[in-house]
């Protein structure tokens, strides 16, 4: 039998090595899974992890895929640091996209450059509004936020489904569940590199995402505001003693994380899709949970971990095209990676001790 003993100190080396070891172990598991299922494991792993890095335009695609993950992941880092379990980022993302979409669809012919900033603000408000429901329920009635955020995700997704099939459906969509296209000023443009031109789909939202991560890192590490966020998770009692209001802190964390998820939804639609449709997200809200854990709950590291998860996603596409491996295999990788990361989390907090002497066990 083995059992866990809490560590007094977390070894610094663990913070860095655990994410790396987790990734390596995931790749090893992938090797075995591909062998068992009869795919050539070396080829499969090449298409998964090397091929997406082989050309500049493919690397640009990684950044595009990582963009929503970075923005949502940063918000979730704040939540998880504060021990708040907002697992409904997917729903907040959808609400943000709906709010921003409402504005874009209400002014179909506008030329104003103010449309995009206002869409961003509305998206933030939309996501924050959706996160405010579990936040207020948690603060006022101590309702469990895990289940409420999860349930609201499905409500948001069905709401969007109704909008694009019903009142918002474009009359020119030939019966498809699609809204009209946003006006051009409501779209996020691709980045133009002088002398090179556009690199694949790389857009300005990616830059914004990186800035958000860095800003959150700065806030978290260097300001009293961030200190408050960390304190509420580590020791709510100390937070109260130092004169902060626990409810207000909880509320602001929900608003920020929900708002960021909403913003991610708006960027995703304005940069890549250009209109609303029943599926706008492909599970970014859930995948961002893995991103937050992989980043060891550090907003700056979210940039790297989002890129790594994006690699698995893009790699899944490339393996599907080249070797006809079903795309769902990305889920297997993501799941295994999260398992290892969580196990690593335990190893930083506890020492594992073995006790093979069963006689002494019964005398405990």
């Amino acid at each position, binding site marked *: 039998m083995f059992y866990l003993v809490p560590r007094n100190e977390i070894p610094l080396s663990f913070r860095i090595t655990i994410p790396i070891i987790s990734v390596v172990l995931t790749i090893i598991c992938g090797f075995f899974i591909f062998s068992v*299922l009869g795919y050539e494991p070396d080829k499969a792993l090449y298409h998964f992890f090397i091929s997406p890095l082989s050309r500049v335009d493919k690397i640009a695609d990684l950044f595009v895929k990582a963009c929503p993950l970075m923005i949502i992941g940063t918000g979730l880092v704040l939540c998880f640091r504060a021990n708040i379990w907002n697992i409904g980022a997917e729903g907040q993302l959808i609400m943000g996209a709906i709010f921003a979409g409402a504005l874009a669809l209400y002014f179909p012919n506008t030329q104003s450059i103010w449309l995009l900033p206002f869409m961003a603000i509305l998206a933030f408000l939309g996501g924050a509004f959706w996160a405010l429901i579990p936040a207020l329920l948690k603060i006022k009635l101590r309702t469990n936020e895990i289940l409420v955020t999860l*349930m609201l995700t499905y409500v948001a997704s069905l709401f969007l489904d109704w909008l694009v099939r019903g009142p918002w459906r474009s009359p020119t969509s030939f019966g498809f569940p699609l809204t009209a296209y946003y006006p051009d000023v409501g779209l996020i443009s691709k980045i133009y590199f002088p002398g090179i031109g556009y690199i694949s789909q790389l857009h300005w939202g990616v830059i914004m995402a990186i800035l958000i991560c860095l800003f959150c890192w700065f806030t978290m590490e260097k300001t009293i505001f961030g200190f408050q966020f960390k304190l509420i998770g580590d020791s709510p009692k100390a937070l109260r003693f130092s004169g902060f209001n626990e409810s207000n802190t909880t509320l602001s964390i929900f608003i920020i994380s929900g708002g960021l998820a909403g913003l991610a939804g708006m960027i995703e639609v304005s940069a890549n899709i250009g209109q609303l449709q029943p599926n706008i997200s492909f599970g970014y809200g859930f995948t961002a949970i893995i991103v937050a854990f992989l980043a060891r709950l550090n907003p700056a590291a979210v940039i790297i971990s989002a890129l790594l998860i994006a690699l698995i996603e893009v790699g899944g596409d490339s393996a599907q095209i080249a070797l006809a491996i079903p795309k*769902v295999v990305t889920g297997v990788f993501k799941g295994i990676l999260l398992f290892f990361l969580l196990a690593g989390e335990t190893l930083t907090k506890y020492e594992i001790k073995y006790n093979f002497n069963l006689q002494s066990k019964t005398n405990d």
Partner: protein
Amino acid sequence: MIDALILTILMTSVPLILAATGELVVERSGVLNLGLEGMMLMGAVSAFALTYTSGSLLVGLLAGVISGCLTAAIFGFFVLGLATNQVATGLALTIFGTGLSGLIGSDFVGKAVTGLPILFPESFSNIPFIGVFFALDIIAYLSVLIVFIVWIFLFKTKYGLILRASGISHTSSHSLGYKVLTVRWCAVLFGGMMAGLAGAYLPLMLTPHWSEGMTSGRGWIALALVVFASWMPSRIIYGAVLFGAITIMQLAGQARGWTIPPQFLSSLPYIATIFVLVLISSRGSAKYLAPSDLTRPFIASK
């Protein structure tokens, strides 16, 4: 016509009853397993694959139960063995199970099996009014029986009391000399078996074929159902029939050209669950509250 509708509602509620009953026991022991969807899908794909290759429904059902149990064992290893965060581990299990089931099942897409037979002779189902209740398969009756057994176990036996105690206060339970982790292991594995059986019911009975992600959110509905039932086994049956009816109503409503948007009906179970959560957290008596040590990992002090 109305009989056919009732029959579909009952059949839709069977997997919900099974999965939710399993999850109820798990949550009563103090563990929240958000991996229901993943375990159900693993059960579904194993049941279909083995029924298809062996030709035996019994083998298929067993395969579903066993693979649900094994998938739950992965969860148990991390959550109980390594005391990882239950919410994140459960989500990892759903992501993993959805992916792996799709990978295993890719060879079985588009193939068909014959479903479970109706338990009673066909003449029974011609009885007016109550005939529809005789037109079900053995798993449907079994699911109700399991709910009853779980109720007896939880509230009328000593072991049930121990299980509930480890969900309410694992430290007290541990101090009294009960093995909290062993109790939770049993609960988690039972939950996995139930989820596996629930999953197996989908490709063997509801839609006799396998498709990727075929649970289509039933795992989450079952999770909601446990809360909706406020952790009381008997209420799972009413809740499941109610949720099942809502699911079927929106399909039937669409066919009849109802003006209520089907998405509104689909979202009702989720909204109802939030409503119940709010109700029990604001003024519920202790009897209907969530187990107080739910999601708290247990680490025995040495």
